[in-house]
């Protein structure tokens, strides 16, 4: 059974001591991590402060783009007057005559000293183009123009933190129309300082809870009937604690920040009003300044502006809120893991000294998988309980799931239609892949067949070509006017004597034609894998079996049914299950060939989820959609696994 070449590494420690130590460690680590999460959540204001600076810089940029230097100067004074956190502000414009700024305290600007600003100005005026020594500045001034290029997204602001004072600076371009002709910068002192994480305290609490919990668990050894009660008690206490702490932390920090933001927005509005700007100008100013403050903006006006800052900006916007989501849910997922996997974690930890090599070999890929696959997955699951408008996230519980499953999304194809299409898509694809692959493999198996190596090499060409290239090639092949498919059909009609050949609008015509186009593409791409798997499996079937069957007078078909198929199963079933999972989530083909059209009718679940993500910008909803997809696949695999026992042989 156990294969332990180096048995001498087995440490000499009583088993019960290991179990207790492991239990203690697991509970202590989990509790400490959860507490650290909650404290860090409460303590981290960095993003909030950065966006305050950015907000003021954008407001200043917007004012100085439309108004003269006098108004801009007055605006700075009016905004800064009542706010002690306002450190400095400056505007530089093409021509160099409009340089001005104010500063409070020692720093002219937290990110650049006066000389640096001066030399930037020199660069700006001398070159006449927005060339600058400072990379940050160059990016911030040229950013807006560059975002216009399709497929290219550049930063359109620069943020900086002064490590000593904690001051945040933001630089934005000053833009009129499509021309960038200057830059505005603002530095603010932190208003809500970060709280350092009290690691020692947390460790102490974690250790106390860990020791208590572990002794509770080991006490269960003496009285096993209490086991479930003690476990439930520990878990319930932990869930309650984390839930209460999380709720308190979430509401207090969020409402605190919201209040601060609203105050900032009101200050800018007051300053603008005092300068005599008219209402539309103020509204436009707030809108421009409030790009990343839609929460506060929507709070004030009741209408959050629709934004399209490109993909990166939207993911950026998710970042801060995403951190909150991950903290909230990582805690819950950890607890859930503790509840479900407590015994296996302890088992693994106690198993390490017995099988050090095994864990050593598994560790690298396991760590990689946990950090880059399982943690993102847990994070994503956590996001599914949130909805968002641009930047603001709010907890909606299971509402996303209800919306998906009741199909109440307005103006969209029903979830159940998409599910039906997905199942149809997967089923047809797998049937075609397996039958074509198996058929070819049976033909190529024949030892007497000449050139079979050449056939085999040529027939796996579709597998060798990157699948996005395949998809785009077929998109071209199915093109209504120039596509080879239509040209071929027209030729056929000519030959058949049809006077006016009709051409089919494959991708935009109807569900059936677009679906067929997708199906043809994916069949072309997918059968070689099944062919190779079947070839390998066929090679391992001993020829004697067929010879014996022939002696017994079995027909070809009988041989296929009684020898080939049963012996192919162990190789084919795992390949089919894996193929099903891959096809079910075959994003590239649908996305690139039909694009889900016409009218989203050929979307499959994964592309529909991506549409919610990319087009609608609803990250929580897309996450919930993805969780539904995962649940369906998991259910499918569990059921087929139970029926076919496909993975059983492999796991044993």
């Amino acid at each position, binding site marked *: 059974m156990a*294969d332990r*070449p*180096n048995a001498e590494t087995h440490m000499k420690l009583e088993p019960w001591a290991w179990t207790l130590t492991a239990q203690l460690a697991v509970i202590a680590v989990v509790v400490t991590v959860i507490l650290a999460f909650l404290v860090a959540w409460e303590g981290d204001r960095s993003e909030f402060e950065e966006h305050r600076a950015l907000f003021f810089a954008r407001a200043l940029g917007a004012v100085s783009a439309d108004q003269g230097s006098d108004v801009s100067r007055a605006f700075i004074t009016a905004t800064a007057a009542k706010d002690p956190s306002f450190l400095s502000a400056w505007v530089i414009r093409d021509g160099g005559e409009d340089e001005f700024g104010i500063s409070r305290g020692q720093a002219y600007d937290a990110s650049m000293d006066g000389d640096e600003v001066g030399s930037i100005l020199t660069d700006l005026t001398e070159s006449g183009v927005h060339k600058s020594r400072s990379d940050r500045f160059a990016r911030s001034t040229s950013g807006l123009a*560059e975002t216009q290029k399709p*497929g290219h*997204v550049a930063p359109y602001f620069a943020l900086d933190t002064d490590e000593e004072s904690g001051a945040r600076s933001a630089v934005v371009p000053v833009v009129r129309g499509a021309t960038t002709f200057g830059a505005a910068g603002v530095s603010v002192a932190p208003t809500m300082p970060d709280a350092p994480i009290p690691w020692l305290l947390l460790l102490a609490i974690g250790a106390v809870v860990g020791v208590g919990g572990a002794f509770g668990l080991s006490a269960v050894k003496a009285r096993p009937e209490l086991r479930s009660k003690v476990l439930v008690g520990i878990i319930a206490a932990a869930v309650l604690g984390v839930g209460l702490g999380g709720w308190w932390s979430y509401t207090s920090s969020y409402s605190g920040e919201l209040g601060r933001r609203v105050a900032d927005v009101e200050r800018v509005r007051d300053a603008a009003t005092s300068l005599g700007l008219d209402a539309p100008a103020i509204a436009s100013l707030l809108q421009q300044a409030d790009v990343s403050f839609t929460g506060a903006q929507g709070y004030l006006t009741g209408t959050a502006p629709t934004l399209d800052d490109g993909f990166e900006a939207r*993911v950026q916007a*998710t*970042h801060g809120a*995403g951190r909150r989501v*991950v903290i909230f849910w990582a805690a819950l997922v950890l607890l859930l893991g503790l509840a479900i996997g407590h015994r*296996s974690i302890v*088992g693994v930890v106690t*198993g390490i000294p*017995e*099988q050090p*090599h*095994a*864990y050593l*070999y*598994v560790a*690298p*890929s396991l760590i*990689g*998988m946990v950090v880059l*696959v399982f*943690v*993102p997955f847990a*994070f*994503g699951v956590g996001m599914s309980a949130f909805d968002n408008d641009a930047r603001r996230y709010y907890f909606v519980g299971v509402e996303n799931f209800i919306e998906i499953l009741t199909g109440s999304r307005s103006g969209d194809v029903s979830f159940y239609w998409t599910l039906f299409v997905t199942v149809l898509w997967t089923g047809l694809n797998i049937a075609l892949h397996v039958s074509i692959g198996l058929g070819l493999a049976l*033909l190529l198996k024949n030892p007497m067949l*000449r050139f079979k190596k050449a056939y085999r090499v*040529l*027939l796996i*060409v579709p*597998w060798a*070509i*990157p*699948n*996005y*290239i395949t998809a785009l*090639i077929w998109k*071209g*092949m199915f*093109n209504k006017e*120039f596509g*080879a498919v239509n040209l*071929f059909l027209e030729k056929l009609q000519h030959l058949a004597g049809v006077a006016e050949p009709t051409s089919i609008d494959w991708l935009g015509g109807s569900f059936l034609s677009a679906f067929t186009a997708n199906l043809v593409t994916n069949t*072309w791409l997918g059968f070689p894998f099944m062919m*190779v*798997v079947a070839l*390998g499996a066929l090679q391992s079937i001993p020829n004697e079996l067929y010879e014996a069957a022939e002696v017994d007078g079995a027909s070809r078909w009988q041989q296929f049914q009684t020898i080939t198929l049963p*012996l192919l199963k162990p*190789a084919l079933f*795992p390949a089919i299950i*894996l193929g099903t999972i891959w096809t079910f*989530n075959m994003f590239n083909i649908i996305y690139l060939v039909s694009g889900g059209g016409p009218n989203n009718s050929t979307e499959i*679940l994964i592309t529909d*989820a991506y549409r919610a993500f990319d087009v609608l910008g609803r990250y929580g909803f897309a*996450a919930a959609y993805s969780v539904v997809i995962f649940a369906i696949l998991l259910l499918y695999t569990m059921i087929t696994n139970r029926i076919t026992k496909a993975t059983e042989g492999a796991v044993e």
Partner: protein
Amino acid sequence: MTGKNRVGEIFTHVFLVLFTIVILYPVMWVVAMAFTPQQGFSMSLMPIPEEPTIENFVYVMSTTGSDGSWLFGRQLLNSLVVSGLTTVFGIFLACTAGYAFSRFRFVGRQGGLMMFLVSQMFPGTLMLIPLYVILDALGLLNQLMGLVLVYSTSAIPFCVWMLKGYFDTIPRSLEESAIIDGASQFTIFWKVILPLAKPAIAVTALFSFMTAWNEFILATTFMSQESSYTLPVTLRNYVGEHSTYWGYFAAGAVMVSVPVMALFFALQKFLVGGLTAGAVKG
């Protein structure tokens, strides 16, 4: 050989030749398009360009960035570095894990194997934002290394299962005799097992390389500058929503596909054995 068999073989050949032509047609079509001067499709059904030209290739290869640097060379280098490192990482991670799952019976083994299988079901749409946040936190955003790590981990579950199956077919008696000779655990893995598993390792290398060489959605998301794009990102942009430069796309497609196809054909003789050895052991 009987006459009946002859006829059967001729039919088989006719069928296979026709089928192969159908399969290869799209490939010939895109090659023809790459050598066709205009940026549209040729109206002819025959995939042979009337006036072959290499201007599409010249254009694609000579693209430069806004700062005048040689963009195509840079992106080719990015793709090579990312794919190469992903292959190295992928082989290392999959071999060690596959070996442990095959040779040791330890607590969590079955759970671990199932975890790897389950991870194949995670929809990509669920992972985009979390991965973005994690790479950002690790400082790996806009870094080739970030892509390498993500690609390596996305390729390993399948490779681990495949390698585990292959290792299972290697007789244990080989290791036992090595132990008697006084070999250490690592020596057995390195000197005995790995050399015997070459076919499966070749397939692992191929899959890891292809994962990295072909991927464009994560690369588009995590890379914000043209100079850090990989080739698929640029290639996909030639036939994007706003532009359809089919000639450039075709030329790029040919150039991107040739290396991976060369690798595929160099290693294809291992495919049959490497993929299925474990599953058909009986």
